[in-house]
């Protein structure tokens, strides 16, 4: 059974790019509709991701939330000094989540969370002007986490659990700005690996200040994915001892999935709930993306990310017995420093506008829907650390539109 579950999970392609770097902030319909808040908001099994300490405060014995999103993001680029322009034709990403909790007793709940917090899927036209940095990239990581939530008192609870991560990467780019074979086909390299695993953990705490005011905090550890078993494919290199040979070789690379700390508060009054969350993501662990190939070549790509913050606000309103309405906003600070703006994660500060609703089909079942429009300002930026000493830049404009749908079950 477990095996089948795993297999079916891998059938999903949940690649996407937005939220600073390659963080994909889409971990629940109800939370997303409220600006992706929820570290102090006990409402559904989505709390398993946002703050496992809250699981124990869920009213029902069994709670399940599951859902997915369609991520439609694209990036336009141009350089007015050369007249070059291009835009991504990225496949729609489909991040998903599955959360469940089971109350063993008054003080102890167990849970399971499966979610996809990191990923990136960007597809530029092959051989575009920045193809020496990226033609296409598809990064994905699935987090699988058993959880335990313990009520210390009616006011205070803690929760957490180990995280098992399995990731995959497929990244293609041209060897440099000009190298081709004799027919003019650009020399390029693809690195591909999947089933890269590692472990991490998360822990949260919740404090009910009063009946309608709750504080929460949650920390998710950094996990570094070390790729050592993958394949690097060199293609369209000319036949010469002066350049690498065509064919497969091994490679090693590591990609950090940074730690994040969220603190927040929820205030509930009658039919209203108000959330405020603040998240700090420790991106400074992402110093460079270095790929060392089995044929002795290497690719050194400084990234030099900085820690970044997310400021999130959400509101929910119970319109009727059947309908709940939600809306939110967040400001997403980019971890990318000026001069390090690489087109595989071309992100500047973004403004996320969210909304959504739930329809209570029966006492146990609800259908949840949400959407996010993530808006970025047009920006003039460059990546100044290309290995040949050049710089690649221009004007970028990105946007992402994300509809999502899910189910909430309680019993």
């Amino acid at each position, binding site marked *: 059974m477990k095996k089948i579950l795993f297999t079916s999970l891998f059938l999903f392609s949940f690649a996407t790019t937005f939220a600073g770097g390659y963080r994909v902030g889409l971990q629940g319909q109800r939370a997303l509709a409220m600006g992706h808040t929820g570290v102090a908001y006990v409402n559904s099994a989505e709390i398993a991701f946002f703050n496992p300490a809250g699981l124990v405060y869920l009213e029902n014995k069994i709670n399940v939330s599951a859902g997915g999103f369609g991520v*439609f993001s*694209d*990036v*336009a680029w*141009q*350089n*007015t*000094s*050369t*007249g*070059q*322009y291009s*835009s991504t034709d990225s496949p729609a990403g489909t991040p998903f989540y599955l959360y469940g909790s089971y109350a063993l007793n008054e003080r102890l709940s167990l849970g399971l969370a499966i979610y996809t917090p990191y990923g990136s899927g960007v597809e530029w036209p092959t051989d575009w*002007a920045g193809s020496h940095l990226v033609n296409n990239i598809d990064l994905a990581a699935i987090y699988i986490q058993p959880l335990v939530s313990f009520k210390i008192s009616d006011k205070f609870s803690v929760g957490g659990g180990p995280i098992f991560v399995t990731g995959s990467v497929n990244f293609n780019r041209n060897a440099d*700005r*000009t*190298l*081709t*074979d*004799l*027919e*003019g086909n650009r020399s390029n390299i693809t690195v591909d690996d999947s089933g890269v695993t590692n472990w991490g953990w998360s822990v949260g705490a919740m404090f009910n200040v009063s009946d309608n005011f709750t504080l929460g905090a949650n920390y998710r550890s950094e996990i570094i994915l070390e790729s050592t078993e993958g394949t690097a494919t060199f293609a369209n290199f*000319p*036949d*010469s*001892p*002066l*350049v690498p040979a065509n064919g497969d070789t091994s490679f090693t690379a590591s990609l950090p999935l940074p730690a994040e700390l969220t603190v927040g508060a929820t205030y509930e009054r009658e039919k209203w709930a108000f959330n405020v969350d603040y998240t700090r993501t420790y991106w400074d662990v992402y110093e460079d993306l270095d790929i060392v190939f089995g044929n002795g070549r290497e690719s050194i790509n400084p990234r030099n990310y900085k820690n970044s913050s997310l400021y999130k606000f959400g509101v929910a309103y119970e319109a009727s017995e059947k309908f709940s309405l939600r809306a939110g906003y967040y400001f997403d600070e980019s971890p990318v420093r000026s001069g390090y703006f690489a087109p595989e994660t071309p992100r500047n500060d973004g403004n996320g506008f969210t909304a959504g609703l739930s*329809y209570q089909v029966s006492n146990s079942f609800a*259908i949840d*829907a949400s*959407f996010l*429009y993530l808006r*970025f300002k*047009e920006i003039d930026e460059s990546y100044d650390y*290309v290995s*040949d*000493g*050049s*710089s690649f830049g221009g*004007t970028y*404009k*990105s*946007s*992402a*539109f994300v*509809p999502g*749908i899910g189910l909430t079950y309680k019993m």
Partner: protein
Amino acid sequence: MRNYIKYMALSAVLLTACEAELDNPIEDGGVYTSGSADFSNFVSVGNSLTSGYADGALYLTGQQNSFPNILAGQFALAGGGEFKQPLVNDNLGGLLAGGNQITENRFVLSVGASGNPGPVRLSGSPTTDISNVLTGPFNNMGVPGAKSFHLVAPGYGNIAGVAAGASNPYFVRFASSANATIIADAAAQSPTFFSLWIGNNDILSYATSGGVGVDQKGNLDPSTYGANDITDPQVFASVYSQELNALTATATGGVVFNIPDVTSIPYFTTVPYNAIPLDAATAAGVNQAYAQYNGGMALYASGGAITAAERDARTINFVEGQNAAVILDESLTNLPNPAAPGTFLPKLRQATPDDLFVLTASSILGTLANQNDPNSVIGVGAPVTDQYVLTPSEQALIFAAQASYNTTIAALAQANGLAFVDAKAILNQLATGGITFDGGSLTSTFATGGAFSLDGVHPTPRGYAYLANQAILAINATYGSTIPTVNVGDYNTISVSQSN
């Protein structure tokens, strides 16, 4: 559920509305302007430099990186139209005539048995047969090998004349008829904008052949010229003016290029004059062999038959270390051979830094002129012959003709209000220090400098891109257009490949 359907429909609408759109997208046009020029029908006229020729051949990717094609790509941002080129079939570059190969394949940089990389001709059977005439018209009317007067010569594209050298196999491929002229085929397209870069071969074929041709100054009938002769400046001025008249008849503007110095291209600057390394014993032995010749020079000088300066120039002396090669210089005084009455002494001297050895001299220097005579090492015991060296007197003829052509070009460009590219100054800059661009530099150094392809004469795609940028700057300055330049770092330099 109906609500969900509505919601999904709304999502779809929003989705389309939310696609990332730049504030002022280049893609939509209007960012760049053409000024007073009209780039809708751009026609380029010239020789190999216009055709995209490189690495000793005209091949497909070279044509795609021809400077007019690069220009046309940028013109397309401001009203420029399609730019058709008479593309060859392959990336080998050799031409066939009726199945027989008549021009060589391209050079590639290949690592030899010694482990050192060097240019070699790429092996393989080319597939471009000149008897397969393409249907035009073509915007790129660059014809490798064409001299100024060839553009107005009827029959220059007649296949019947190729074998005898009376016509040009490259023009045969796309001439509108056997009797067509290049300039008439260009003008018939009613260009709205044009480029003209012609006159290089009027001195270059003389130069690359080491000056074995004749300076035709004073001879106004180019039909009597040999392939390696220097064109008379009046002939040049006359045909250049005709060509401009034909092109300006319909065009709103154009860009013209002058003729660079031969001394700025690696074909003449790569092989040093003193490429002969000798040890002390060998040098002494060689000097012994020249003792009689040196004595003869001293005698003729004391008798007044030659000047002391000529005596010094003709006194052969080898030393331990690097030595100047012995060359044959036809401009030296004819001196009877006292040992064999009725014959003359060879016109030998050692080269000086003012002598320019052509690139192909590298393959004969130090080899034996006579396989059976170990003393016939070329440059030591046997002289380097005329076709490998451009002596100062030969260079003077080239510079005189070039200066006159350039005066004509500059004057006619000004008179017609055309954009003018000082290719002479640009190539001199590449030769004397180079230029830098984002992430690199471009110099004239053979093979490694980036600007020149492996034939030592024609630019690389990156070199052509740099020239295209210079043309764009001149065009913008002349016509008030705002065409953007290209990023030269995006263009390739030389190709590496093993040839087998």
